[in-house]
């Protein structure tokens, strides 16, 4: 298990429009210690810098100030679900997964596709899949990396609600079985409160941390529990003046659920 510390992270982007002269600060002096094995969710209005924060942690951003330090003296193995699926269009789904894995991972890749309810689609090209199916393939790819650190940028957005529900419980199962450290961006407060061990809300305008709560409750959780309901209320209160997120939901296709074989992946 690996933990990480963010020290005084600030990210400014140069002004975009020709009229604008001032640079835009999206993250300001973010300091945060994430303990090994934590499941942290990051919430905040659109444009606040959630994706940017994940990119900084992943080592993809080179223009930030501050420091990212690991709890161990090594780079963690990272699995990431980007905001976009980012699959190679010329590779089949299974080949997209195997591209990032060590040799001999085929059986596990198939099991993971099964887990995200894509059994039977392994030989399809990405363009033959719906957007939601591509996202799930991207989730399977991230898990196949056997990550110490799992970075998830709205991984379950645009899935129909019953499937999202099942995948949420798979995700918790995976976390409990494999103990990766997870940082997940979501716009869904219920998701944040149901899944994670800690919720961090970023404040618009200032780009600072508006709220940071640990959730020491066992799984499975119910939002009707008083402690959770209270946190949910707090988040909703905070978000009263945030602009509403816009996103669409895919229609539920008649795809198979995860088989019992795939569920083995979630046993400790």
């Amino acid at each position: 298990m690996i933990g990480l510390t963010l020290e005084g992270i600030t990210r400014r982007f140069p002004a975009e429009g020709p009229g604008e002269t001032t640079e835009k600060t999206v993250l300001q002096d973010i300091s945060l210690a994430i303990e090994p094995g934590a499941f942290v969710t990051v919430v905040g209005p659109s444009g606040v810098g959630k994706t940017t924060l994940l990119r900084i942690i992943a080592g993809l951003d080179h223009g930030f100030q501050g420091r990212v330090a690991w709890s161990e003296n090594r780079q963690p193995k990272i699995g990431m679900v980007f905001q976009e699926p980012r699959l190679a269009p010329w590779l089949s789904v299974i080949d997209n997964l195997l591209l990032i894995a060590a040799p001999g991972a085929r059986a596990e890749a198939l099991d993971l596709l099964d887990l995200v309810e894509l059994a039977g689609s392994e030989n399809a090209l990405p363009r033959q899949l719906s957007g939601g199916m591509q996202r799930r393939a991207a989730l399977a790819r991230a898990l196949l990396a056997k990550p110490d650190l799992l970075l998830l940028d709205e991984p379950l957005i645009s899935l129909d609600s019953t499937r999202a529900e099942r995948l949420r419980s798979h995700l918790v199962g995976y976390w409990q079985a494999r103990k990766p450290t997870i940082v997940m961006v979501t716009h869904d407060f219920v998701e944040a409160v149901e899944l994670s061990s800690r919720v961090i809300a970023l404040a618009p305008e200032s780009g600072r941390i508006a709220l940071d709560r640990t959730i020491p409750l066992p799984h499975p959780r119910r939002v009707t529990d008083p402690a959770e309901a209270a946190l949910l209320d707090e988040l909703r209160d905070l978000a009263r003046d945030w602009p509403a997120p816009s996103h669409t939901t895919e229609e539920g296709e008649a795809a198979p659920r995860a088989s019992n074989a795939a569920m083995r992946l979630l046993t400790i």
Partner: protein
Amino acid sequence: MKAAAALEVPRRRPDWLRFKLPSFIALLVLWQVSAMLIADPALFPTPLATLETGYLHLMTGELLFSLAVTLARVAVAFFFAMALGSAIGIALGRSQPMDAIFGGWLSIALNMPALVTIVLCYVWFGLSETAAIVAVTINKAPTVAAIMREGARALDRQLLEATQVFGVSRWKVLRHVVLPQLAPSFIASARAGLALTWKIVLVVELLGRPNGIGFQIRTFFNYFDIAGILAYSLAFIAIVLAIENFIVQPVERRTGRWRTA
């Protein structure tokens, strides 16, 4: 059920039978008729006379030898031009500073008249095989570089980022992520280059080589042997079309399959 559905589809004759062959025959007829009208076999021989000349040269072995010599030059120059042009193009496409500094040089190279490079190469390196190959390579490489630069610029950065995060090895990224994206540019430049290369090779041969199609054409020119010129040209066109049809196009179809919706 599948078989029945297949039977219902009206069987269409392949495209080349319906259009290409008739139009090709029409061209031959047009040639024959206009040659008969002009009625000057020395100035404008008929297709049959041309075929006869071609047959004679085929029998002496002259035609095949010239074809082989020219094709060998095309192949060697093509190889060097593709290698050099791809390397330059990818370097410029991947690195903005490189493009800023050397992009202008490429523009100059692209607009250099072929004749100038050929003449300069012969002057500097002598009337040698090396000079001929260098001249053709220098002529064609910029075209390849320009096309490959566009391809390299358009590489999917999001995908490259993903492979970086997952720690995919350089070799796997090159083999499975970069090359598949460059393949269409590579084939486009090969195709654009192939036509260009053989035309330039003929000029190079005409100006300073003792063999090959271009040399033969100069000889025929000296004797006003129009039938010879036409016969050699047509033989070469046939070879180029065969390469296009049986090598370039199949490869193109294979590499572009994932694009078709």
